């Protein structure tokens, strides 16, 4: 017979304003096994925890129920408190009367009734709880960072500096990511390459860092502390050890018609290429889809001109299998496709470009060598129009529901840079709101208006109308003047929404990390655990978690690194004791449980069984507790009812069902 204590938290007024907490405590005393019940203002506070601990000791409690916030919030807190008072932590159950009750109901009577029922279910469950002991698992002291942009680079550097081995897997031929495509950065107008390339060099030569470029994560298995990952190193067709990076092959390559990914398709590159001059590694790859040698068998120029003999047409993809203790996702973003926004004539006119394309146009290494010119005729523009919020803040199915966060600032940057370098160019920005929270951000935007004379018009653009003479007629609205505006422009720049890299969904699935409807990875807690995935051992760095600018990305990258280091610093991890367990007397060895187990945690042993005096040799299931993650698939599939899940046993869940339906 259990001796159960029930502790009802007011959570200030969060619970107490809608739930009669005293009544819940009073009702608890009527429940089976309950010998103690009390309510208190903040159970999670030190005083609250002391009350729990005192009651455990004084009343010899064998189990407790805390009626409070979500177990996702404070289950660990209360388990640890109970453990310090000598109670097995798995004898603690939480009744969630805040998120699932007081916060969503208004009527006190109704909410109190529900809270009582939730309390009863938890008491019914804890009556059947048994003490559980976590096992231990080892920690592989190596981290994997997926994505080699500024987020991944920073995370890798921080982990490596702490003395742990880190591998970066980058899909493209070079690390650097989106930041390498930017010309200048706000709010200080630093040259992007000038601040990024030193970091790229640093991470490249760090003794603890291994970089796999032109590579992708192919398979992930295992769990926190002990992941096993297959990395596909795509065939580069160039021997990385022999190549000196002289660049002759790229010069001589006769196939130069492929659109440059790095320059956003605004110009072309050769089939053998490095994305940009400062690429790391400075070793080209052959894009086999555009290479004549691979497509027609005739060519081989690069091989002939390579003094180092580094070209290797026979190279094959290579699979590298490595073990990791922690994985950081830093897969970044791309701009949305503008197929749904043809009213802005993006697909009709080469002079309508996205902001990222403008970065390339403004960049000295870009398609126009840094000269601001129209891509249609190479003429210098006199009138430029920027359109904000293209595809952001939409509740229709054309765009994204969120604010992309960086556009207001980079548009102010572009406007300012253009006015600075080309004072005779007029710049007009159509905006809905200018959002500039951030240190020195609003000042930056105001400088664009006040010092550089950028014309900000509050109102959206309805249509961009290409004219026969090549100009663009922009039809917008000025909401302050209440006028429709027709403005002739030479170039139009669209602040297209950003979205997570489309590959992230595949990666999230491999990692079993949660992802939201916008393809952003979900954090374990929006405020308190913003760089951790709910899946243990998976950490989030950069825009894969939500829109952010460079300073924010770098801080989050550091935070993710610290969390990963905290994990790697441990030698052993406690494993979840809520694992499956088979009753060998009931097991008939049918193998169905092993068939559904996603972890291969179930094996079979031939054992001598004493079944009520009858000794028999039987084949029975055995669960490896280190591998079992406790999903419970086997418990339902088991035809004989031998398999059960500790902590969520059939009897426990049935008791909860009974208590709710009582």
């Amino acid at each position, binding site marked *: 017979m259990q001796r159960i204590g029930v502790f009802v938290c007011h959570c200030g007024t969060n619970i107490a304003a809608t739930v009669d907490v005293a009544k819940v405590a009073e009702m608890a005393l009527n429940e089976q096994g309950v010998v103690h019940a009390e309510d208190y203002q903040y159970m999670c506070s030190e005083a609250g925890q002391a009350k729990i601990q005192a009651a455990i000791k004084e009343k010899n409690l064998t189990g407790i129920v805390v009626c409070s916030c979500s177990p996702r919030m404070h289950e660990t807190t209360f388990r640890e408190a109970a453990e310090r008072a000598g109670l097995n932590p798995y004898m603690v159950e939480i009744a969630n009367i805040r998120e699932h009750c007081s916060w969503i109901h208004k009527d006190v009577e109704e909410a109190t009734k529900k809270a009582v029922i939730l309390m009863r279910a938890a008491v019914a469950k804890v009556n059947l709880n048994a003490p559980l002991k976590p096992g231990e698992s080892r920690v592989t002291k190596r981290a994997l960072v997926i994505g080699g942009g500024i987020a991944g680079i920073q995370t890798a550097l921080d982990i490596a500096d702490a003395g742990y081995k880190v591998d970066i897997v980058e899909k493209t031929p070079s690390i650097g990511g989106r930041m390498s495509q930017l010309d200048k950065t706000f709010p200080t107008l630093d040259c992007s390459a000038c601040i990024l390339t030193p970091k790229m060099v640093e991470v490249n030569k760090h003794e603890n860092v291994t970089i796999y470029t032109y590579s992708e994560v192919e398979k992930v298995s295992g769990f926190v502390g002990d992941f096993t990952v297959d990395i596909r190193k795509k065939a580069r067709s160039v021997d990385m050890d022999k190549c000196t990076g002289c660049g002759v092959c790229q010069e001589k390559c006769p196939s130069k018609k492929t659109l440059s990914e790095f320059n956003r398709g605004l110009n072309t590159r050769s089939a053998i290429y490095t994305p940009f001059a400062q690429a790391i590694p400075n070793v080209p790859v052959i894009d086999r889809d555009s290479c004549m040698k691979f497509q027609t068998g005739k060519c081989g120029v690069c091989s002939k001109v390579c003094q180092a003999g580094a070209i290797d047409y026979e190279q094959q993809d290579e699979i590298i299998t490595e073990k990791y203790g922690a994985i950081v996702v830093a897969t970044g973003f791309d701009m949305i496709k503008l197929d749904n926004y043809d009213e802005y004539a993006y697909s009709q006119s080469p002079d309508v470009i996205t902001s990222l394309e403008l970065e390339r146009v403004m960049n000295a290494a870009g398609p126009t060598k840094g000269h601001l010119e129209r891509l249609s005729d190479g003429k210098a523009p006199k009138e430029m129009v920027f359109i904000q919020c293209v595809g952001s803040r939409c509740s229709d199915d054309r765009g994204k529901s969120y604010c992309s966060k960086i556009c207001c600032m980079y548009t102010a940057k572009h406007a300012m840079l253009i006015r600075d370098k080309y004072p005779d160019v007029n710049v007009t920005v159509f905006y809905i709101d200018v959002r500039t929270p951030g240190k020195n951000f609003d000042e930056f935007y105001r400088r664009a208006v006040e010092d550089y004379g950028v014309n900000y018009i509050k109102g959206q653009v309805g*249509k961009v*109308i290409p004219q*026969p003479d090549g100009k663009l007629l922009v039809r917008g609205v000025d909401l302050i003047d209440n006028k429709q505006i027709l403005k002739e422009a030479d170039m139009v720049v669209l602040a297209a929404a950003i979205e997570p890299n489309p590959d992230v969904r595949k990666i999230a699935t491999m990692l079993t990390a949660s992802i939201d409807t916008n393809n952003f990875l979900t954090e374990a807690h929006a405020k308190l655990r913003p760089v951790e995935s709910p899946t243990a051992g998976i950490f989030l760095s950069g825009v894969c978690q939500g829109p952010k600018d460079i300073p924010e990305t770098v801080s989050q990258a550091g935070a993710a690194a610290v969390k990963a280091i905290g994990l790697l610093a441990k030698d052993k991890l406690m494993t979840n004791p809520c694992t499956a367990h088979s009753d060998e007397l009931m097991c008939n060895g049918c193998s169905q449980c092993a068939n559904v187990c996603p972890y291969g945690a179930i094996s079979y042993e031939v054992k001598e069984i004493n079944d009520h005096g009858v000794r028999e040799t039987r084949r029975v299931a055995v669960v490896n507790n280190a591998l079992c993650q406790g999903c419970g698939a086997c418990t339902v599939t088991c035809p004989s009812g031998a398999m059960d899940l500790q902590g969520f046993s059939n009897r426990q869940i049935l008791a909860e069902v009974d208590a709710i339906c009582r």
Partner: protein
Amino acid sequence: MKYSYYPGCTLKNKAKDLDAYARASARALGFELEEIENWQCCGGVYPLGSDEIATKLSSVRVLNEAKEKGQSLITLCSACHHVIKRVNDDMKNVEDIRTRANNYMQLEEPYAGETEVLHFLEVLRDVVGFDKLREKVTNPLTGKKIGAYYGCLLLRPGKILEFDNPENPKILEDFIRAIGAEPVIYPYRNECCGGYISLKEGEIAKDMCGNIVDSAEGFGAQMLITACPLCMYNLKKSTDEALPVIYFTELLAEALGVKGEVDNA
């Protein structure tokens, strides 16, 4: 292949040629337009109010008629297409309208948007296929530079009409290519001609049509084609026929070599 066909009032009167050329072309292309019996006027504009039922019933009747025959319903006039397609969408997706309309109609089997509504152009694109059409052209209109004028009603709201990309359509351009001519793409091709406003506010329509024709001419169009009698009226009237405006079916019939049958009939 047999289709139910809804011509609409205007095609029986001021726009007889739009209809006649379509029928002749259909025959030449090997499909048959079976006119719905006793059809009534669609009303010309789609009633936007969510509480409008009675004004949608004539469309429901036509749709149900096609359903009973087991045929898709072909329309030609942009306005009729717009109204019937949207009413069909209501019948399919808006429970309240479906229930109330069916209560009025007292059909043996309730109508729930089963009929497929196709514009004549969609049949050319999706059933006949523009490549096939090109093969059947006997009299290609080589060298003609033609601007397609879409207007509003075929394109918007795009989610319901599902006709083409409402901001950058290409079905008429593809059609123009298929009959051997050269399409002229100009940005005003999906802008409004003024619609019914020309009845009382001729000046507004004049401005709008002026923009359309100027833009088309500026990009080199020698003529405009349309599927809508009202667009044609506005474009002609408001711009003193600066550019010839003709129905796309007339060009189709010409390209297929059946224009004479109609003109001499």
